[in-house]
């Protein structure tokens, strides 16, 4: 018995076409203009829908181990599958930190146990993300870790960052930086600008991101070792990355849906739902992020999915933790906010992040015979609104209530198995 997808508009790295797709076991068995259902075939009628390689999220916080009241690897994986993701990179700010083989193996195994998408544990750059000592890059790389980051804490020490890049050279791993000079953001809860002046809130100045980004671009130039930049949020950051790429430097960058759809004016509600790091910025910054995605300066859309239990967000801004949910709304926010060709949006959600995550052998692949069956089948036109109570995530901190989203995953096929069917998780 196999799975037959009929009537689909396929969009993959090779282009766009109208074909039927047959999946057997974990592999795409056949792709043809028209395939006839065999007896016992499970048929998905994808007429009017788009079939693409599964989405890959470079940036999620699954909170396990340590903060299971906010999210578990299982609930986060379910949210990912419902969002059309077949692979997610789990950030290392767990408790304990993902700085040892034992912890990353645990995260990977919990992902396998959930079986809803591939959970790719990242490793921290420094032990405990404390910015003092490097983690065992080679041991962790041997355990399958591809992305290293101290996300939440940029590596502050320039010497340590230089050493990290030099030591990483040749290990087949990518260092990813959260750009924030902490000395400039002490106590900050929102973007520094007119809005924070009015609201009496400590500001997070754009330059705190841009200074570290500039430093690290120059370290890449010095060492020749590539880097990935997490969640760009300012117009100047986009400019810096654009210029560095024009110089031929081996860097990549991501942006989150909230940084191209929501402005700092949201903080006027004093609702900690809108507190996120880096913070929501101005409409000029949003426009620059969109332009960066459109011209390829920014390679990937990543969610920075950051679940927090409701009681932690029902606090004044300075006491509430930063972060917002993103997995289940990423496609809908992207298609509603970005003026880009559909294929380019999918590229930023699928094969481009797959390459950065080091999983291009199994995610973001062409839809062709013999390829791994990690697929997203979505309706690019469905208009919908998020209902927090219906989210699969264990937390409810979505900032998109009341916003009209466009595009939603209908079926998600992970490793040949439908894990989302007709918009619902199969298990």
């Amino acid at each position, binding site marked *: 018995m196999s799975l037959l997808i009929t009537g689909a508009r396929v969009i993959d790295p090779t282009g766009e076409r109208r074909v039927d797709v047959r999946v057997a076991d974990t592999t795409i068995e056949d792709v043809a203009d028209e395939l006839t259902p065999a007896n016992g075939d499970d048929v998905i009628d994808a007429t009017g829908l788009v079939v693409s390689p599964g989405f890959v999220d470079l940036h999620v916080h699954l909170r396990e181990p340590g903060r299971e009241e906010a999210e578990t690897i299982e609930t986060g994986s379910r949210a990912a599958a419902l969002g059309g993701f077949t692979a997610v990179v789990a950030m290392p700010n767990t408790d304990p930190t993902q700085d040892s083989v034992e912890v990353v193996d645990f995260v990977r195994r919990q992902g396998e146990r959930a079986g809803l998408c591939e959970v790719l544990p990242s490793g921290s750059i420094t032990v405990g993300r404390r910015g003092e000592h490097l983690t065992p890059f080679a041991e962790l790389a041997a355990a399958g870790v591809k992305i290293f980051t101290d996300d939440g804490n940029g590596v502050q020490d320039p010497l340590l960052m230089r050493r990290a890049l030099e030591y990483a050279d040749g290990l087949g791993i990518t260092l990813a930086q959260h750009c924030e000079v902490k000395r400039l953001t002490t106590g900050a809860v929102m973007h*520094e*600008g*007119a*809005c*924070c*002046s*009015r*609201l*009496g*809130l*400590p*500001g997070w*100045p754009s330059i705190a991101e841009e200074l570290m980004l500039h430093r690290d671009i120059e370290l890449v130039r010095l060492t020749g070792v590539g880097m990935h930049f997490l969640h760009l949020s300012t117009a100047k950051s986009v400019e810096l990355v654009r210029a560095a790429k024009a110089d031929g430097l081996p860097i990549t960058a991501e942006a989150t849906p909230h940084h191209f759809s929501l402005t700092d*004016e949201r903080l*006027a*509600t*004093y*609702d900690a739902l809108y507190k996120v790091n880096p913070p929501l910025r101005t409409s000029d910054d949003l426009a620059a992020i969109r332009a960066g995605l459109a011209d390829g300066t920014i390679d990937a859309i990543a969610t920075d999915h950051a679940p927090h239990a409701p*009681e932690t967000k*029902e*606090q*004044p*801004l*300075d*006491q509430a933790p930063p972060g917002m949910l993103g997995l289940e709304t990423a496609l809908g926010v992207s298609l509603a906010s970005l003026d880009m060709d559909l294929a380019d949006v999918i590229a930023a959600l699928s094969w481009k992040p797959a390459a950065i995550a080091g999983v291009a052998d199994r995610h973001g692949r062409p839809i062709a015979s013999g390829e791994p069956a990690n697929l997203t089948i979505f309706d690019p036109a469905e208009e919908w609104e998020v209902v927090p109570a219906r989210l699969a995530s264990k937390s409810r901190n979505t900032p998109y209530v009341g916003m009209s989203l466009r595009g939603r995953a209908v079926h998600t096929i992970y490793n040949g198995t439908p894990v989302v069917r007709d918009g619902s998780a199969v298990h």
Partner: protein
Amino acid sequence: MTPRRATSRSLLTIDDLGADGIVRILDLADHMAEVNRRPNPKVPALRGKTVCSVFFEDSTRTRLSFETAAKRLSADTMTFAVSQSSLNKGESLRDTIETIAAMGVDAFVVRHRSSGAPQLIDQWTQASVINAGDGWHAHPTQALLDAFTVRSALGRTGGLDGLRMAMVGDVKHSRVARSTIAAMRLLGVHVTVVAPRTLLPPDAGDSFADVVTDRLDEVIGDVDVLYLLRMQQERMNEALVPSLREYTSRFGLTAARAAALPSQALIMHPGPMNRGVEIAVDPGELPGSVITQQVTNGIAVRMAVLFDLLGSGRAAPDVDTGLDIITEGGSQ
């Protein structure tokens, strides 16, 4: 920016009132000041109402002022002083407020170190919420008592059109500055902010004040009101000014500046004052000082705010019959 929903139930910022609302409160405060001059300064206007002070940050002066105001209107008062330790026990702000609200409270008077906390609390309770100061954000009753003090000292009625005020000092970290500047400008005052860039909000543009300068000596000869903000010692650790001595030499009211001030100019300070820093001369020797009146007027203004929010009589009372009219309407 999406404006906060208008509510007449609570007082969170000066913008909730607008110019007309401010004048209404000041007019009401005139009557309250009259009550306060009586031998027995107490009326039953809010009998049966319960006012709870919830102070998440110590402020004995403001709390006493509110509680005195509530008592003079015959409201029952409760105090919930939140020590740092109970905050650390894990009860969320929302749980704290809902617990107190369940005891039956008509108004919360809230002081919180976090900007925006009163706005959150307002969403979690049906009771009135009066902002008694939140973070760097707002302190509307201070702004009202400041406006009342100026109006009374100058014997004016209505607004304060044409007056010139200089506000000097740490505007950036000051809720008093944000609220008092907003109130004064709504009343027609021309406001000049005097501070070094380090003590200004990051985007202190035209929407914030009429003029922004770091030259006190250039403006001091042409003001009707000189408002000095408190310079907090802890700011010295943040490289905001090199030293208190230099601060005083540039922004303090020295004897030389006192001499340059127009003779009829009022001198104000929200307290508590750092002697020798903001004011380097004996305030007793400054004939224009209305700093003590600010404290006194705080009670009348807070009575007016409480009555405005909790009493049933919204209209200004008939002067001839005095507050007995309010009393009847307000006691229910």
